[in-house]
């Protein structure tokens, strides 16, 4: 086994130098880390799992990478090696991102962006890297399905003053304040996305389209008392039938309050805030407008 291991590591090194990432990963994954014959210490096993996951990630192969990062999950809790723990966190966040588990990926990216140390092992943690992690956290949060958990993460990011310096901040602000996003803003945001974040879903929409349409629909429900699907489709940039389907799904999933009159083809938005509370909110808006004047 010892000789096989040495040959495998050597071959993997060569594949890696030729950037044949998956071949290198397959070579290393053939090493039997749980063999009873040889004593393999936990650190070596953790190092190999993380290395194989990294190589698969170079080829955006989240499925194989996840298998090895899950193995690493059992080992990392007992490890005290900062570099390995750091790498595990980074690769795990990327795998969640690749698998479109945007909500969890956002939380992990945000955790990475908050690290205080600037030196882990011989790895330099620079501000640009942290800013990149923060941007990734914002992107994943925006792409995540609307709901209370996403709103909480949005609020955390919006209140983190580092975000106000990011290029992505205008989008974050509009999403957090539930304002309607116009097509040019969405296209600009789309430029920044990675390939897997722009992949088409079964209903022929990208993840971004879905996230943006749902967001704009929720924003419209805050603005209008009711609206025809003709107008709503124009506002969302999609055809009226599609708008009706998405609105119906969100109402069924209790992510939006309202009712649909299919005869008149109108959606009536409801707001469970008590009238008296709405009254107070309107007064706040009026006083603030007066204050501005």
């Amino acid at each position, binding site marked *: 086994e010892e000789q096989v291991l040495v040959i495998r590591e050597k071959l993997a090194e060569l594949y890696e130098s030729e950037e044949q990432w998956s071949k290198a990963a397959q070579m290393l994954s053939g090493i039997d880390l749980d063999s009873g014959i040889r004593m393999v210490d936990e650190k070596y096993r953790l190092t190999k799992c993380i290395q194989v996951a990294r190589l698969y990630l170079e080829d955006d192969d989240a499925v194989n990478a996840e298998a090895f990062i899950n193995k690493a999950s059992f080992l990392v809790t007992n490890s005290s090696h900062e570099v390995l723990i750091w790498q595990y966190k980074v690769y795990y966040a990327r795998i969640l991102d690749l698998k479109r588990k945007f909500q969890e990926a956002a939380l992990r990216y945000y955790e990475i962006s908050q690290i205080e140390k600037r030196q882990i092992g011989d790895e330099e943690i620079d501000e640009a890297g942290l800013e990149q992690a923060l941007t990734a956290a914002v992107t994943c949060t925006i792409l995540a399905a609307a709901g209370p958990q996403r709103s909480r993460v949005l609020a955390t990011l919006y209140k983190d003053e580092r975000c106000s310096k990011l290029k992505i901040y205008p989008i974050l602000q509009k999403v957090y304040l539930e304002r309607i996003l116009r097509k040019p803003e969405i296209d600009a945001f789309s430029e920044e996305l990675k390939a897997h974040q722009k992949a088409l879903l079964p209903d022929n929409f990208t993840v971004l389209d879905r996230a943006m349409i749902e967001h704009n629909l929720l924003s419209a429900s805050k603005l209008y008392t009711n609206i025809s699907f003709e107008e709503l489709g124009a506002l969302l940039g999609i055809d009226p039938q599609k708008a009706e389907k998405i609105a119906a799904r969100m109402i069924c999933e209790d992510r939006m309050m309202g009712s649909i009159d299919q005869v008149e083809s109108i959606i009536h938005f409801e707001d469970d805030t008590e009238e*008296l509370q709405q009254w107070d909110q309107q*007064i*706040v808006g009026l006083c603030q407008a007066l204050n501005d004047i």
Partner: protein
Amino acid sequence: TDAIYFYDEAGQAQVQQEKPWANDPHFFHKVRISALALLKMVAHARSGGTIEIMGVMQGKIDGDTFIVMDAYALPVEGTETRVNAQADAYEYMVDYSQTNKQTGRLENLVGWYHSHPGYGCWLSGIDVSTQMLNQQYQDPFFALVIDPTRTVSAGKVDIGAFRTYRQGYKPPDEPLSEYQTIPLNKIEDFGVHCKQYYSLDITYFKSSLDCHLLDLLWNKYWVNTLSSNPLLGSRDYVSGQISDLAEKLEQAENQMAHLRLGSFLMPSHRKKDEESQLTKITRDSSKIAVEQVHGLMSQVIKDSLFNSVCP
């Protein structure tokens, strides 16, 4: 105005040495609280909702006055249902105080605060025993109570500061402090212990920076005043108060009925006692009514101010 924020370490050490409070159970009379500490304690009390929260206060002594500079929350909840809840947080308190000193904050702990959501500011049996322990081992130390629910409904901070007497001490007759409604389910606890402690006068102070910041916040303040609705926010509390009042009426009525049989036998001071009970109930109900009318007045003013303009 900012001199109060300077900490005189030697002076404080000397006071700790002399311990003037050790021989006079009524030594302390006043408390001065910084705007920062007050805001943090009220925000913490409100965050607990109907669950009692607890925290400690840092500051110093100036003659017979406690000066509170800052306050921080302890990882403890439900203080009224456990004896000396503070014990759960000792480790936290020690760490926090030491870390604080490392950052140059030299103030010591001068007291603990906790909340009584909806039932007013006084010391319960558990509070009295906790405070007696504190005065035995951590003096100078005082107890502060905040009622976040009444703070919202009355529109001003419902707060009380107290010191306990040593065991067995017989205090001179206290001048009646401001009347407050004690719920029926707490009246026993209140009655038994209210002679074991006394209140301290509370005043507040703020730094020049606080003044500047609060002025900047002024715009938020007047908007909040015009757009707030005390009736909406305190519904649960008011219905709780009314049901408590009904129970007291029920109790008073039973006692009256019971006494009517032997009323000619009843000595005059008992009759006076019954009246004072009914007087209290009357006072409680008019207090509730007045607060409700205040809320209604603000609603009517808002209605005429913002809704009466015809387009």
